């Protein structure tokens, strides 16, 4: 559904952008893809996101309020060594696989320095809270247990827009401070840098 919405916006963008050609549009819409590299023992994973923002009148529309939805599912694996996993000559296989799916709803205040370096190039940075829905599925000993929780976190971002066509291509990095406290994970920060996050940002209306 999200993908279909993004495609419709992308196709309609030239007409919409033309309607407000005299000034940049105030509504920001940006699908994005990237590589999520956690700072915890979790492995790297692809992520997908969609942001919808509004360039507020404050600071001559340099300040935007952005709502973003992110999804990623990093994994980890290992083995438990415990004397209780053997009895007599028999021993159990202590290996496990952990999949930690996270869906983030991120609310950010973003400052955009239009044409700061050169015309058409806009660096930006921001921060804000995030509501993270975590779902840890751990498979071990022939069974799977699933833990879920939703917690508040923080996130910082920085990136740069490069005007291209009706919108701008961009690259950005983001750091999430999103702790989980599952039995299976322990109390850990599952956030990390969104390295190589790229996308295309439309400015509409």
């Amino acid at each position: 559904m999200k993908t279909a919405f993004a495609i419709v916006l992308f196709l309609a963008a030239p007409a919409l952008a033309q309607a407000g050609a005299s000034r940049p549009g105030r509504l920001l819409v940006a699908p994005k893809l990237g590589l999520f590299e956690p700072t915890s023992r979790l492995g790297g994973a692809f992520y997908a996101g969609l942001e919808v923002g509004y360039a507020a009148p404050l600071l001559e529309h340099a300040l935007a309020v952005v709502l973003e939805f992110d999804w990623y599912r990093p994994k980890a694996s290992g083995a438990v060594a415990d004397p209780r996993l053997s009895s007599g000559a028999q021993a159990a296989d202590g290996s496990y696989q952990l999949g930690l799916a996270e869906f983030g709803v991120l609310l950010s205040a973003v400052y955009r320095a239009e044409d700061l370096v050169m015309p058409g190039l806009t660096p930006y940075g921001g921060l804000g809270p995030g509501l993270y829905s975590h779902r840890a599925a751990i498979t071990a000993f022939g069974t799977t247990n699933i833990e879920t929780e939703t917690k508040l976190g923080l996130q910082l971002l920085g990136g740069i827009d490069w005007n291209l066509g009706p919108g701008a291509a961009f690259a950005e990095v983001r750091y999430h401070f999103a702790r989980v406290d599952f039995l299976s994970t322990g109390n850990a920060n599952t956030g990390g840098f969104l390295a190589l996050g790229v996308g295309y940002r439309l400015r509409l209306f």
Partner: protein
Amino acid sequence: MPLRLLLAGAAAFAMAACSRHIDGPRPALTTTVNEADPLRTPATVCNAQGDPAQGWIIHLIGDRFSPLPTGTLGKSAGLLMPFVMLSGPEQFQVPDAAVFFLDKTRLPVFLPTRDSSAGGPAPRALIPGSYDVSVTNPNGRSAQLAAGLAVVPPPTIKSVQGQFLAAPSSAAVCNDQAQALVVTGSGFRASAPPTFSFLDAGGSVALTLPPAWVSVDSATVISASLPPGAFAPAQASGTGTQYTAQVTNPEGCKAPYGTDPRGLGVTDVKVFTQCRFQPEIRNNPDSFEFQVTGVQNGSATFLYTWQNSGPRATVDQSSSLAGGSVTLTIKDAAGNLVYSNSLGQNGTFLTAVGSPGAWTIQLDFVNASGTFNFRAQKSG
């Protein structure tokens, strides 16, 4: 307006945060098995003895037992085992360290006993009776098995008595005769007949009686029927080869064990090659008479309990010792030796002063030949 939106959004964020939830498989518990008695289900376990460190091991049989690796994003992963709870005459949660895992259908569990310290420093004797067993996975889902475990006390032995009158003592087995042994004690079960064995001086099993020779008459009496030649010739002797009678219940507990009493007539018996002579006894309060005639190279031990209400006794000895030796010893009610003499010495003798009550009279024949008489009487 944008500020209000921002505040409203932040409030919605905070309200959306919720507590954690865990879901996973619900275990199934079908039966329990005592590793020492795997054919009897559900398990019966003894509340004593077992492994000195860990007690007795039982297996919980079922499906979807699900230990949970913990702290997998930390430095080293831990493990949370299913919780095992016993509910019956008392509540007992098996210590986490005593619950093991082999696969999702089998949980070995060590149960502590009064003689062990499984999972903790304190030995524990579970109250005998029937227990419900429950298993709870770390995800909170559980299964219960009603009457899934029976806890029983260990057997004890109070006496082992031969029933063959020609035997040289009540704690003797005459290997040339068919005879019965009667064991009194406690903790015997007809539904789970024990194994009856004889241990040699080194503690090794010299003979285990076939089940057909043993019957449980009641919770306190076991009888065993021994045919002639039950022991191999080398396992018996003319002077009697000493063995310890041992009873082992199917779940593994045995008697004697540890501080259980031992001694001839208690758990020790002597196995004689043959029993050819039988003394005549008159055992009355304050008067005891013994006579045996025509003994040829006889070796045996005779042990009697005699009631003497006095502090001393006179002993009249009249025998003809043709060979070997016969020693008469008498102990008072406190177990103190008050008299020791060869029956080859004829005459009237006086014991030392002792405690009135149940005195013990013992005669040891070693390759003795002859005719032997004596009488003991109360003396003021």
